[in-house]
Structures are given as C-alpha cells and as structure tokens.
C-alpha cells in the first residue's frame, strides 16, 4: 500500500489538521515508511484469533442509570477560549 500526497491531504482533512505544503510533502515519505513497516503483521496467520478488546479479563461494571455529577457550568466553561455564559461559542454555522 503506497500513500501519495492526495491521500495525505485527504487524511489531514479527516483529522481536521491543517498542513503546510512542506509538512504534507514530508509526511508522504514518513507515513509510507511507517505503514510499510507495520505491514509485516501480514506475515502472521490470525485466522480465528479474536481481536483484543481488553487486556484485563473482567466484565465492565454497571451502575444505576442516574445523574451523579454536574450542575457547575462555570467550571465547565472556565477554560473555554470563548464563551457566552452558559455556552461555548463557535463561529457561525447556520446563516
């Protein structure tokens, strides 16, 4: 599997990361190297092997379905780059 610059630009779009031209060029080689290195896993026959979901063998705990936390919007907003109490604000999405 070989990655070209269009693929890198496409991944960056999916990851919502703006890349400088030079960065995108460098990433073509870097990502190709890393991906061709990890592709050695293809040598292994994993037919019938279950994908790992958890390293610790135990059931996920359940708790009662009720609200146990919250009610402090000022704390939640304390680190927002921009807020209009009691909301986070973002650039206009709907005209």
């Amino acid at each position, binding site marked *: 599997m070989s990655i070209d610059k269009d693929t890198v630009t496409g*991944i960056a779009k*999916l*990851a919502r*990361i703006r890349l400088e031209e030079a960065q995108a060029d460098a990433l073509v080689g870097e990502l190709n190297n890393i991906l061709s290195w990890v592709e050695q*896993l293809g040598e292994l026959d994993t037919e019938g092997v279950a994908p790992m979901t958890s390293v610790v063998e135990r059931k996920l705990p359940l708790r009662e379905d009720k609200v146990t936390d919250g009610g402090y919007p000022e704390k*939640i907003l304390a*680190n927002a780059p921009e807020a209009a109490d009691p909301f986070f604000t973002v*650039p206009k999405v709907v005209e």
Partner: protein
Amino acid sequence: MSTLTDLTLAEARDALAKGELSSKELTEAHIAAVEQVRPLNAFITETPERAMEMAERADQRRASGEAGVLEGIPLAIKDLFCTEGVLTTAGSHILDGFTPTYESTVTANLWRAGGVLLGKTNLDEFAMGSSNMTSYHGPVESPWKRRGDNRKLVPGGSSGGSATAVSARCALGATGTDTGGSIRQPASFTGIVGFKPTYGRCSRWGVVAFASSLDQPGPMTRTVRDSAIMLRGMAGYDPKDSTSVDLPVPNYEAALTGDLRGLKVGVPKEYRVDDMPQEIEDLWKAGIDWLKAAGVEIKEISLPHTKYALPTYYIVAPAEASSNLARYDGVRYGLRVEGEGDLTSMYEATRGEGFGQEVKRRVMIGTYVLSAGYYDAYYNKARRVRTLIAGDFKGAFAEVDLILTPTAPSEAFAEGEKMDDPIAMYLNDVFTVPSSLAGLPAISVPTGLSANGLPLGLQLIGRAFDEETVFRVGAVLEEASGFDALPAWLAERC
C-alpha cells in the same frame, strides 16, 4: 556532604516519623533544588507556594497523629495529570493556559496520603516520544553526561522531566505514565527505578489520554523500596475509570523480603535482538547470575510474537490517540486559532498550529488505519496480533513467575540523535512495548554503567496484579548490582 535532598523517600519518611525532620524543612530543601535544576528544563510549572502550604498542613497532620503513607514527602507530577488550579499542558501548545477545575484520581490519592506538590514535569507532547524532544516547552536535558563528552543527553521519554527531577535529586519521587515504555525507558536512561503497574491498578481518570487501552500511571523513584511506598499512595479502585480494577491495594513494601527461594524467572530468547550492544548483553547475563545466586531458577522461555509487538503498537496506539485527541478542537479549552471564519477552518487551523510534528504524524496514522476500507487490514489485524502477544505471556507465566530482560536496547543518546527517522526512535521501546500490550506490571532497575559511564537498566515483567513479586525480585537485583553511580549534575556538586 550529605543534604536533605540526598535522602531516599524511605529515609525521609522514617526521619519525619521519628520527628528528626519536618516536612517544611524537607520541602524547602527540595524547592531550592528545583530552582537549581532549572537549566535542565525538567519542570514546566513550579509550585513552591503550594508546596510550602501542603508541607505545613502535613506537619500539622503528623502532630495530630494522622500521618498518611507519604505524609510530608515532596513529589513531582508529570504534566499529564490534571491538577486543580495548576496549569496542565501535556507538553502541547494546544493546551495553552489549561487550568483544570478538577484533580486526577492518582494525584488526589497522593495528596490524601500526605504528598507535597513541587511542580509539574516536562514530557514529550501528549506523552508521544522516547527522548523528551517533542515537548512544546522544549527538551529536557539529562543530568548525566558521557565520560569526557560534554554533549547534552536526552533523559528518555515520555516521562523525561520526571526522570530528570528524580535523578538530579530535586524530588523524592515523581509520577510517570507508561503507554509503551514511557516510565521504564527514561528510568533506564537516568539511573533510577521506574515501575509500570498492571493496567487497571492506577486510575486513568484525570490523566490526559494518549492510548486508553495502554496508558498506566506509575512511580519513578531512586530505589525499589521508594517505588513500593509511592505506588501504595497512588493505586486504588476508582469508579470514575471503568477499567480500574476493584482489588485491595497491598502494602508493597512488605513484599521486600529478599527471599527469592523457589521462584522461577524466564529469559526470553526473542529479546536477543540484532545489534544489541555487548554491554547490555553482559548486564543481562549479570542479572541472571545475581538471581541465580539468590536461589532463583532461571529458565529460557519463548515469546514467539515479540518481533510483531512494535508494529502492533504503532497501529493500536496511534488509532486510540487519533480518537482521544479529537477533543482538542479550539472550543472547550486551550488554544483557538480562528482560521477563515468558519467552524471547520477554525478546527483545522487550531489543530494545525496546536499539534507538533510527532503528534500530527501519529494522529494521521491513526486516522488512516481507522478509516473505511483499512480498518480491518490494519486496526483489527493489530488487535488480533495483540491477542497473540498477550497469549505468549500467558503461556510463559505457566512456566515461570517473572521475566527478566534489558529495559532498553541502548544507553541514553544525545539531543538531536535519532531525530530524522521515526522508526529508529520507536525501536527504543522494543523491550517495553510487549508487556504494555499485555497490560502486565514491569519495573526498570538501574543495575550498571555503560563504557561511556551512562546508566543501564534491567526490566522485570510479572503476572497481572502480582506487583509484589516484581518489587521483591527488583529489590534483590538492585542490591546485588550495588549501583550507586551519580549523574554528572550531582557529582560536580559534591
């Protein structure tokens, strides 16, 4: 001349208990050492006022007979743990100014046990790195130097600031986090003890997430005993982390009996990698001899999928990172870069400017391996191989109680070395990643010096939740090796 900063954590604890020393005196000495060590860039934030307040309260609690297991002990905290009211950066530009309104469970446990916060230590950005060169706040320098060579060395990573703080004796202990070796490799590079507990032993709640199925907090200290004491103060069940395990926390220090009779330790043949330096091979042999002399039976074992651990890790960890780091969007905390006035360009501009090169690389890899059409070929394949790797260990632990390996395939390298090739950097973790993928407890113990005069560590890997055997055998290795070398930073001051 001996000073208060030369005490180990255990010695300081005992002196405090006997009333020979106050936490105020001990903390003052460490605050001064933190100031002295500034040229090494180990700390992103120092908290001397908070430290003195906490020390004072510790002395009061002790006077009223309520001392915890770490009462009055000055500690450094990796800047990946959220600390209420104290800047928390994860070593990233994108968390500029982030001051949590809550405290991570592990640090809350430490403060409840009486610990004193000296400051927040530098790290590779989002804990992604093995050199501490990827921090937005600049590289950390190791207190060690090669003999006759003045070049700056890396302390390893990602917990490089914590490693330097402990090695340069400005904190009695420090927290680290280990995803693929981020506690053990820097411990090996700086001549200290680093302990990665079983996955689930310490809560991840309030620790900035990198790869959630692998991340695990642990102690970094000068001695094995100190790590045993500190882990007791960190560990414990936490309902806020669904992967935290509800098991009692033993008194790990009580496990340090020195009695290894009847134990079987495995030596995996697959860890004899090509071009491993002879001195590391020799140290490994020495470790085998020390354990034999202590009555341990050594067995050669096989962990057949070892060579696939790193490629597996470099699919699983970036995949989880790409999901975890989706939250840095310029809306809720940290940096915001406006872009062209619309929401998507704000996201892209914020993340383009806020993430460093290594983080971008990993988020991109993770996004790719999780994307439609590649998910099965990469991500699911890696998860299947991870099952095989964990199975290797399960098989081995049917035969042996513990596994002995080197911690890292090299001594510390100089700043700037290995920076051009990401895969060369990733190979630093070749011996630590397999046990991370299997979630097992492991320790790095400083046991020797290279020909260049730099520390080298040996690693012990134990069964899940059997931290006690790891500590017990680690302490014997430590004692047998007689490691007592000082970093150049301290030797020059003696």
